[in-house]
């Protein structure tokens, strides 16, 4: 299932979407490929287009321009529906169904179903099968929704803010269960989250959205290797910007702290730190057009 010949888990070409015909673009010109077998973190600020992207991949919305393919199939086709599971942010379930009814529904509405896996996911959360979904806590509901998604044995699992309602212990448990599932069966996972430290340990691919555009689609390890957190005298800022890409900078007095993507070796008098994935992501998320244009102006003025 994995390997160089496996189709990409997700591939977008020129993908664009807007909610109203004459409205602004929620996503625009998105171009990326996520290899299969990866645990991908979908990161972006509020309104960056994360949910839109997940809905498009899940076949719940249709692209206005370009296309997105999941496991080399068009989202929403029977083939894609059979192989892709989606958990949207609100985790909708029928409140008057019991947990058993909900899982039964999963069995009835899917062409393949792993009852044992679904029931195990529920049981690990200590949720009785006879409980009504409407009477469960949000965290327990998340677990039931996840059981519904895992029961269909997907090859690609799309999760929109899956951990938001869970306590830290449950987060750890569910993440561990997901990782085990992914490792056992080569399942690809794409999950959006604001909890960056969590992604550090679990994700090996990063998809970063900014204002509806893809800013990063990269292997997490490579990302860590290519970035550096520098601290030094502010005078060196311009020589630094000339050689490397400054993702984010902060000046305090005469001291400059900068997150850079290195192109070649560093020169100058810098205190260098290997940033954590979280620091890199925050650097990209904080970075906005204003900072960048100010930096560009400074560079020009200095030249």
């Amino acid at each position, binding site marked *: 299932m994995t390997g160089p010949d496996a189709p990409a888990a997700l591939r977008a070409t020129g993908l664009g979407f807007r909610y109203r015909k004459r409205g602004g673009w929620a996503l625009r010109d998105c171009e990326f490929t996520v290899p299969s077998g990866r645990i991908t973190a979908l990161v972006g600020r509020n309104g960056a287009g994360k949910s839109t992207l997940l809905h498009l991949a899940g076949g719940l919305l249709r692209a206005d321009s370009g296309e997105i393919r999941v496991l080399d199939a068009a989202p929403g086709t*029977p083939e894609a*529906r059979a192989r892709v599971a989606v958990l949207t942010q609100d985790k909708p*379930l029928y409140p008057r169904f019991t947990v058993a009814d909900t899982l039964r529904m999963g069995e009835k*509405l*899917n062409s393949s179903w792993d009852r044992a896996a679904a029931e195990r996911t529920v049981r690990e959360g200590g949720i009785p099968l006879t409980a009504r979904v409407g009477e469960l806590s949000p965290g327990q509901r998340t677990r039931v929704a996840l059981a519904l998604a895992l029961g*269909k044995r997907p090859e690609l699992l799309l999760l929109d803010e899956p951990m938001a309602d869970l306590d830290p212990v449950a987060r750890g448990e569910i993440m561990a269960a997901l990782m085990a599932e992914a490792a056992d069966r080569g399942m690809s996972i794409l999950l959006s989250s604001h909890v960056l430290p969590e992604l550090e340990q679990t994700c090996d691919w990063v998809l970063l959205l900014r204002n509806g555009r893809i800013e990063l689609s990269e292997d997490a390890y490579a990302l860590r290797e290519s970035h550096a957190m520098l601290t030094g005298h502010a005078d060196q800022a311009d020589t630094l910007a000339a050689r490397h890409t400054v993702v984010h900078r902060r000046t305090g007095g005469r001291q400059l702290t900068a997150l850079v993507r290195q192109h070649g070796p560093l020169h100058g008098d810098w205190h260098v730190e290997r940033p954590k994935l979280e620091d890199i992501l925050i650097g990209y998320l904080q970075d906005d057009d204003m900072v960048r244009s100010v930096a560009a102006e400074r560079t020009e003025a200095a030249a």
Partner: protein
Amino acid sequence: MKGSLRNGSLWNGCLWLAWRQQRVLVSVGAAVLVAVAAIAAYSRSGMLDDLGSGLFDHCDAGPIHCTRPDTGVPLLLDIEPLQYLGALNIALPVIIGVFWGAPLLGRDRELGTHRMVLTQGVSRGQWFASRFALAAATTVALSGLLAGVFAWWWRPAADRSYGLFWYETTALSGSGPRAVAAALFGLAAGTLLGLLARRVLEAMALTLLVTGAMMLVLEWTHRMRLLVPPHSYISAGGVPKAPMGEKWSAGHYGLITASGRRDDVMNCPFPSGAQLNECMDRHGYVARFYEANPAGDYWTFQWIDTAVLGGLALLLTALTVLLLRRRV
């Protein structure tokens, strides 16, 4: 082969879900039907006993009530429960639209649960078709059987002065194929509004408004004879007019000149006899007329209503299917 097999099981799954979510409504419908049938059987047998007593044997056909020979009190069958059933049949499209149609897609849209269902193995088409088919089949069965019960109950008392004439609202709009088409219209209107409105409650209110207005408009067309124009019944000279009998009078009476001009009856307001003849001669009238729909027009009214409501139901369903992709 395997694909079609798999598809078949998904259809089964969709129907299972539709049944799981609509079984309460189906049960309520069945309970109403049983209750109505029981009341009808009881009330109808009482009606037959009254008719069998011979009390009504001397009554003529026609709209004038016949009276008890001894006391002069008008003779009437107890048709009040029958009229309640007619009223229920008239209200049925509104009830079905509000409580079945509006939540059919609206509930899922409000809860967001359609996103959960549509990311399982089933398609939008299967999801909509299965739940709408179950609702439509139940609607047809319920409204058809209620209309059937009405017809069965009504028959012994139909078009009698002591019973219920075909043109009375509860009979004309509360029976026949029209009642089935109206119920389907209510369901289709509610379903579409459930898809368009943001909340179920909003959809229910809109459905109440739309289906209620549609029923009133059709009543108005009946009253105005807009879609089924009345016939003119002409009697030459002072010859007595053909009896009204079971015809539905349009309330237009008048006089006709030799050239064919029609004047109001008040120009010669005399029932018959010498005064009438003298008056007609003086004004140059050669005949009298009145306008009414014959009893056979019951079916014309029925089929026109059925076509209008059935056509609208189809149209609204088609619109729902077209909008499904965009709004769900």
